[in-house]
């Protein structure tokens, strides 16, 4: 075992979660690597401190159920109802654009089912493979056609999530009405509800970038440095991601890229594609670590599968 492999499992060892076989292999490495051994001790100490820092919770606010009941009993309980939002596509386009903006969390596409207890679970219905958008074009990315783009908010513009949206439905007000609702107030009556989707996807898959902006200084903050690292080689990784998504689509699995709905039940977000900087344990290793990329597709039945480990 070398240091690189050791670092991937140090945290598990520190938490006592490593299986015996790998733990034995790691211990063998630690005997001849004082740096990794010191890292392990650091992780153990930090874990102990985090654990001790935990304080008991206060009692829950009284009347949670009463407030919830009031909200779900409201006749026009549509304030919390999900709103259909445009389905946008263009993985590589968005990745390339994001390399320019790297503004944080942004959308490749989104789907929010319109459903409640009285409607079928739209978010979990299957998607016919032919309904999946065509694989993304390799190479230089063309901007999305204006006729295919749905109107976006200023925020979406800034995030440069310009992706194709074949058959996109009209945008909801959700994106621009992100202000948290009034507390303890019943849902507003009479809110217009968009029509139900014709072909709800099998799963909503999300991916995200660190929220922090890129900074020149890179004060060592993880998010800053991670974002900077991603920005540096984003064009390379966009190709890899695009390939992975296309391959996934070719297998007819109806992969959709989305972010959690801005409104409506968060549970509608049933899957996730996670971009991770991998292990980023030390500043001198950040650049290397930032290249690590993982995409995990979680199917509606909850099975997570890595579709890209770059």
């Amino acid at each position, binding site marked *: 075992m*070398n*240091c690189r492999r050791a*670092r991937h499992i*140090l945290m598990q060892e520190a*938490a*006592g979660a490593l299986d015996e076989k790998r733990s034995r292999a790691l211990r063998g490495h630690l005997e001849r*690597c*004082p*740096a990794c051994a010191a890292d392990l001790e*650091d*992780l153990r*100490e*930090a874990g102990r401190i*985090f654990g*001790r*820092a*935990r*304080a*008991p919770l*206060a*009692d*829950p*606010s009284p009347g*949670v*159920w009463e407030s*919830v*009941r009031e909200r*779900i*009993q409201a006749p026009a309980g549509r304030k*919390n109802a999900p709103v259909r939002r445009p389905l946008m596509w263009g993985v590589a386009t968005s990745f390339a654009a994001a390399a320019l903006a790297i503004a944080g969390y942004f959308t490749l596409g989104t789907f929010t089912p319109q*459903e409640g*207890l009285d409607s*079928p*679970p739209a978010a*979990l219905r299957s998607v016919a493979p032919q309904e999946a958008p065509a694989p993304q074009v390799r190479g230089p990315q063309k901007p999305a056609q204006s006729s295919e783009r749905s109107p976006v908010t200023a925020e979406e513009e800034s995030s440069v999530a310009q992706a194709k949206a074949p058959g996109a439905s009209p945008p909801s007000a959700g994106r621009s009405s992100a202000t*948290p*609702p009034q*507390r*303890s107030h019943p849902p507003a009556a009479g809110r217009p509800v968009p029509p139900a989707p014709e072909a709800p996807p099998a799963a909503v898959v999300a991916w995200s970038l*660190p*929220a*922090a902006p890129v900074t020149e200084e890179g004060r060592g903050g*993880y*998010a800053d440095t991670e974002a900077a690292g991603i920005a540096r080689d984003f064009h390379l990784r966009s190709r890899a991601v695009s390939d992975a998504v296309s391959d996934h689509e070719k297998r007819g699995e109806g992969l959709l890229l989305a972010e*959690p709905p*801005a409104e409506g*039940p*968060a*549970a509608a977000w*049933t*899957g*996730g594609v*996670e971009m991770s*900087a991998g*292990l*980023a*344990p*030390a500043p001198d290793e950040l650049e290397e670590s930032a290249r690590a990329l993982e995409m*995990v597709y979680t199917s509606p*039945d909850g099975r997570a599968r890595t579709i890209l480990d770059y």
Partner: protein
Amino acid sequence: MRDTGSKEQVSPSAGVRHPEEADAALVQKARSGDRESFGELVRRHERTVQGIVARMIPSPDDAEDVVQEVFVSAWQGLRRFRGDARFSTWLHTIAVNATLKRIRQMRRHGQVSLDDPESGTAERLAAGAAGQPFEQAVSAEEKAAVRRALQNLSDNHRMTVVLYYFEEHPCEEIARMMGCSVGTVWSRLHYACKKLKQELRDIRGGDGAPGARGERPDA
């Protein structure tokens, strides 16, 4: 090592002993429209949901609102819950997503700076809604290091720390809740711990760790 199910109290009204079985029975009734059964589910899980939400959102009012949203969303989406995961995991997934969403909204609207040391957010992460101080076993410098480390973590990293260290969920559950791989959860914990250790070193004004740090033979 970690069993979040043990946190749940078995409700006498549920008529079964095992918390998951009790949940399943209540979910079954709630899915058929029995609001009182859902109310029982709310009472059984409000503490853990509040734990996730209140440790991440500084404003008690906002936290309370998100807690309500979580349960309203759960009610609205109850038919999607098919029982292949524990109800608590499903519910906590909603809580995680709703919390992160609210934080994004708050940051977007400049309502609060979660990284503002004056807001005490980092301390609340560990302390919970009532703002209790850190545990007494934590020294002043450790307390400061935890605060600074948490402030400098991304939302996802902070949430991972909350779920693992403060709410004591196993990594597999955290992965499900956050829609990522177990490896990513470990990676985030790794980074958070390294961050905390670095803050400790900075506060201690040296390398902070006893003993010299050796060179990697094959790095």
